[in-house]
């Protein structure tokens, strides 16, 4: 017997295995970031004062724009596969990777500036939570980049052998990617603006 419902959906749940799996994984991620946001609230309310304007709003806003754009290119990369347009898919996926790297480079300059100013995590609880939240988020971006590079490189072979399964994989990668974007949508106002 082979494992069923890898590509086709199970009639009574209407789902393929991977779809449910990735959503459950995202559920656990929600709780992971939830704990950090909870930490943020408790530390902020308990602090005698909370710094304002320590971060560069324009860099943050720029990175928001980059991530939102990458979400659009990601969904287009999947939609192109659905329409069997391999060339477009490659283009959009590469664009997504490019935007993700752009984000990381931006983040690198931001970090470097803080380090230069001796604004390290040990400086205050604000910088502690700032570095932890954005660092963890950055690791998620990096993870996404690795996965997308895999699908641009060795993983792409599957398109020939099993296009439906490949499309599903891109869809799941997309779900993850949109989630990472979604986290940033909250991180940006919470850390940069408030």
């Amino acid at each position, binding site marked *: 017997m082979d*494992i069923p419902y890898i590509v086709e959906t199970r009639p009574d749940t209407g789902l393929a295995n991977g779809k449910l799996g990735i959503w459950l994984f995202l559920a656990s991620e929600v709780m992971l970031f*939830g704990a950090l946001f909870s930490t943020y609230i408790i530390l902020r309310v308990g602090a005698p004062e909370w710094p304002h304007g320590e971060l560069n709003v324009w860099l943050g806003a720029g990175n928001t724009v980059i991530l939102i754009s990458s979400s659009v290119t990601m969904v287009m990369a999947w939609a192109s596969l659905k329409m069997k347009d391999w060339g477009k898919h490659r283009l959009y996926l590469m664009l997504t990777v490019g935007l993700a790297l752009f984000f990381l480079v931006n983040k690198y300059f931001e970090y470097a500036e803080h380090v230069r100013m001796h604004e390290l995590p040990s400086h205050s609880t604000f910088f502690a939570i700032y570095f*932890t939240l954005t660092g963890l988020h950055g690791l998620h971006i990096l993870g996404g980049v690795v996965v997308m590079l895999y699908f641009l490189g060795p993983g792409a072979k599957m398109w020939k052998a099993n296009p439906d399964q490949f499309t599903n994989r891109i869809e799941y990668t997309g779900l993850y990617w949109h989630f990472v974007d979604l986290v940033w949508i909250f991180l940006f106002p919470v850390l940069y603006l408030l």
Partner: protein
Amino acid sequence: MDNVTTHGSVAHGHAHEHAAHHELGFWRKYVFSVDHKVIGIQYAVTGLLFLLFGFTLMMIMRWQMAYPGRPIPLIGMWLGQDRAPMGVMLPEFYNQLGAMHGTIMVFLGVVPLAVGGFGNFVMPLQIGAPDMAFPKLNMMSYWVYFIGGVTMLASFFPTGGAAQSGWTSYPPLAVIAPGQTMWLVGMIFLITSSLLGSVNFIVTIVQLRAKGLTWMRLPFFVWAQLVTAFLLLLAFPPLEAAGVLQLMDRVAGTSFFMPSGLVVSGKPLMISGNGNPLLWQHLFWFLAHPEVYVLILPAFGIISEIIANNTRKPLWGYKTLVYAVVFLGFMSFIVWAHHMFMTGMGTTMSAFFQTTTMIISIPSVIVLTALLLSLWGASIRFNPPMLFALAFLPMFAIGGLTGLPLGLAPSDIHLHDTYYVIGHFHYVVAPGTIFALFGGVYYWFPKATGKKMNELLGYVHFWGSFICINLVFMPMFIQGLGGMNRRMYDGGAQYAHNAGLLKWNLVIGFAAWSLGLFQIPFIINFFSSIKWGKAVDKNPWEATTLEWSAPSPPGHGNFLTEPVVYRGPYEYSVPGAARDFSPQFEA
């Protein structure tokens, strides 16, 4: 009956096909296997070894408590100068043993055995699936767990030794004490492993149920695993976050859990401050309370299977049992701060947590009542698995009932952090969960190996363990009510008010070491039965659930024909049926 013969003949044809298809080398077959049965056995054996190791740590500690300051016999001289100079245990080593005993038992022993082992091996078989939904992820879960375990073990060796701030790792102590960094890294691996595993479990149960296996036909064990997986999935991430934060406090000099103005051994601590030590406790117990139900739910599942099988009748109130554990799982997320009543909690929140704690005791009462009523009208076979399952009931009852005075904040004032708490939870986890796990080993051993374990050795193991374990944990209630604190290097000998309670330390010590001796028949039985045990066919217990329709041991892909389910899980002694069991898999 002719059903069985058809299966048999089919078995032949398929067996050849499989042999030809899947010729894997030794490494892929037994070490880096993606087969849920192999992974399940890997988890189970690793978990058992960790249980034995965790127990050994405790036997050493009980020596120090029974005879404070006397050299440890046999192994004392081997422990080294920074642990036990001249064989006499140092306080810091005692604290390391305590913290690691708790951590190892919970995260490296019971959970891997109950979820990773039994869950992995039995659950796919019981739902008629060929494997887990994501076999490679399954293999990864095991190896990530393995790395976490090795990290924990290795943490004993660097200078400073292992973690010594209790399994609860409360900061600021945990941030300033040695040994904690490796503990945190190990925990992050273990949590990751559990998260991967829980995704796999839920998807498998939701997606891979065999034809005809509706939700209300699921064996109760599968329900228990499903709820457990949700607890792991949603409760563990906050501890992962908390672990990262504590790691930052240790290595990056942050102050998430460190308030301002700390003075350690006379010197002000150079940190930015403004952190909150209670924040850790919230994040820790947000996991750790659901975690204790992770320890008990699989045990409920195992003993339900064994009891139904050996009473030869359906479980009483199957649906009620299912609703009760689902409710239990849900409630377990909102009771955690009953571990924190003494942290200065006000009336409102303490009333909230006392109320939820009392509410959560109700589903446990319902589960126990249903299992007890299942015995009425039964025809009970007292074989080793059944003895362990039956003993579970009153033992869990003692553990559960003693949770009630702890759940009421005013009585917790007296009992908090005394041996009463130690007694409470060991009754649920040791003669409770561990007994259920022993029962499960005896019960599913034939499925995993095709051999039955020796019954006589089983009886010796059961009665010896049953008597000794009660002698270990019952006196702890006396000590706790008398006001003896837990985590005492000298067993509480410093305090005058403990004077009358110290004699129990001797009783407990001897009982614990005897308990250790009574595990020898089990270990012998376990390994020798693999080779010399009585060979059995695929359904030696005459059971009804799906795993017993597969060959023992099941081959790759588990079932010879696609299983179809025709009825509920516990159709024993159906009036008018030819035999006293009507399996799910027979039309």
